[in-house]
């Protein structure tokens, strides 16, 4: 049943997002082609305009991935479609897991499209060399490879945005337990949950600081920590966000299993 639910959830989200994907890649390619015309002011200007549009589209992809997932969740669990969702012979756990998996898959797809667009639009040997040179100059404060840093940063961002997705679900689940102003309460509860999770992150960092002087130094002094500080922070961030993702998942599933009240 999970497979079937997932199929419909993915279809709903990707049908809409794929339009954004195509537009973004299109502007990326146009930008690449037209920015190359250094001698023609008109063609170069078109390239600059497309460059701005590419960036706008990249931001739009990220926002729409989140909004679309939240909208689907709200409509399916609390809107008119909820009557169908809750009368399907499927467990609430499967219903929720399908929403989480579909939104995380869509987020992954969006990030891949964004990275491909950035690569298509901006990659040149010179640009890559500039990044490498900039990174080499930071060797004293970052004791890691450039590839690890890029992959670590992308993965950490992916996990963090996945957590934000689930925060939205938590907000909607708690907000719809209220009798009035459900959407308003959903935003408030989502924000409160965000603050609570960030507090957990800081507490986790403090606990890690008890065993790692570099981390504790961040709280107690203004001096630069040792070069392996960045690696530790990236690994900690990924581990902490995975843990929070699991806690959020279990909490939301518990809330849903307590039952819903559809207007």
């Amino acid at each position, binding site marked *: 049943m999970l497979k079937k639910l997932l199929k*419909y959830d993915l279809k*709903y989200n990707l049908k809409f997002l794929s339009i954004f994907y195509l537009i973004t890649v299109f502007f990326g390619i146009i930008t690449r082609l037209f920015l190359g015309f250094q001698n023609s002011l008109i063609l170069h200007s078109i390239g600059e305009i497309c460059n701005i549009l590419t960036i706008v589209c990249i931001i739009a992809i990220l926002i729409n991935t989140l909004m679309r997932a939240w909208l689907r969740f709200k409509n399916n669990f609390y809107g008119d479609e909820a009557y169908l969702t809750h*009368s*399907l012979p499927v*467990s609430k756990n499967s219903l929720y897991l399908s929403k989480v998996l579909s939104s995380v898959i869509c987020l992954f797809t969006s990030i891949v499209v964004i990275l491909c667009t950035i690569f298509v639009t901006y990659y040149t040997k010179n640009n890559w060399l500039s990044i490498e040179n900039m990174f080499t100059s930071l060797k004293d404060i970052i004791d890691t490879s450039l590839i690890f840093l890029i992959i670590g940063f992308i993965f950490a961002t992916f996990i963090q945005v996945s957590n934000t997705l689930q925060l939205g679900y938590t907000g909607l689940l708690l907000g719809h337990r209220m009798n009035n102003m459900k959407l308003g309460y959903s935003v408030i509860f989502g924000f409160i949950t965000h603050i609570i999770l960030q507090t957990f992150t800081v507490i986790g960092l403090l606990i890690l600081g008890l065993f790692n002087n570099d981390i504790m130094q961040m709280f107690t002094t203004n001096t630069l920590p040792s070069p392996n500080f960045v690696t530790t922070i990236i690994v900690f961030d990924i581990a902490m966000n995975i843990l929070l993702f699991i806690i959020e998942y279990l909490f939301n599933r518990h809330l849903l299993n307590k039952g819903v*009240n559809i207007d």
Partner: protein
Amino acid sequence: MELLEFKHVCKNFNGKMILKDINLKIPRGKIIGLLGKNGTGKSTLIKLINDALTPSSGEVLINGKKVGIESKKIIAYLPERTYLDKSLTVKESIKFFQEFYENFDAQKAQNLLSDLGLDINQTLAKMSKGMQEKVGLVLVMSRDADLYILDEPLGGVDPATRDYILDTILSNFKDGASIIISTHLISDIERILDEVIFIDEGKIILTSDADTLRVKENCSIDEIFRRKFKC
């Protein structure tokens, strides 16, 4: 074992008691009218059977078990709202029902839709509300369920179509299955009812066999309803 049983069920909203200590048994093989004015608790009662609401106290049992996956397999529910995913075509909605309900007959659904002259390749979003309601009813009645729950199935359709809908209901449910029809349009459904349940202000005020009630009161159910709920 009763097909459906309410045991001391109460439902509160915003501090207001919508359903008050409901005790009810629904037998097999009957067409039951759940009758009451607007806002008396009919839809709330129906939503509790379909997991769309959680009781504040008491329990709802279907075949002796609490509402869950097993009960959803045998209940075909038509809510009062257009509940289908409007981004899907009618054909895709049929496929959706076929994938999730083992007892769904896709051929029957297609035949009924063709009788109604509905284009199965049309997106639901492009259909009128009345057409969407017809599609919803056809999908529900194409299931081989033990209990059909129809919440205001005649509310949004013209009088000419009402007879067709009632005939569709009557000719598309299996022997031994029960139907609960919630409505305030009693004269339209009176002819098909075996039993009636009158609900007012969250309480069940009367349950009776339809014919016995007619003989006892010497008038139609519609007339009895008008007397009981006179403003």
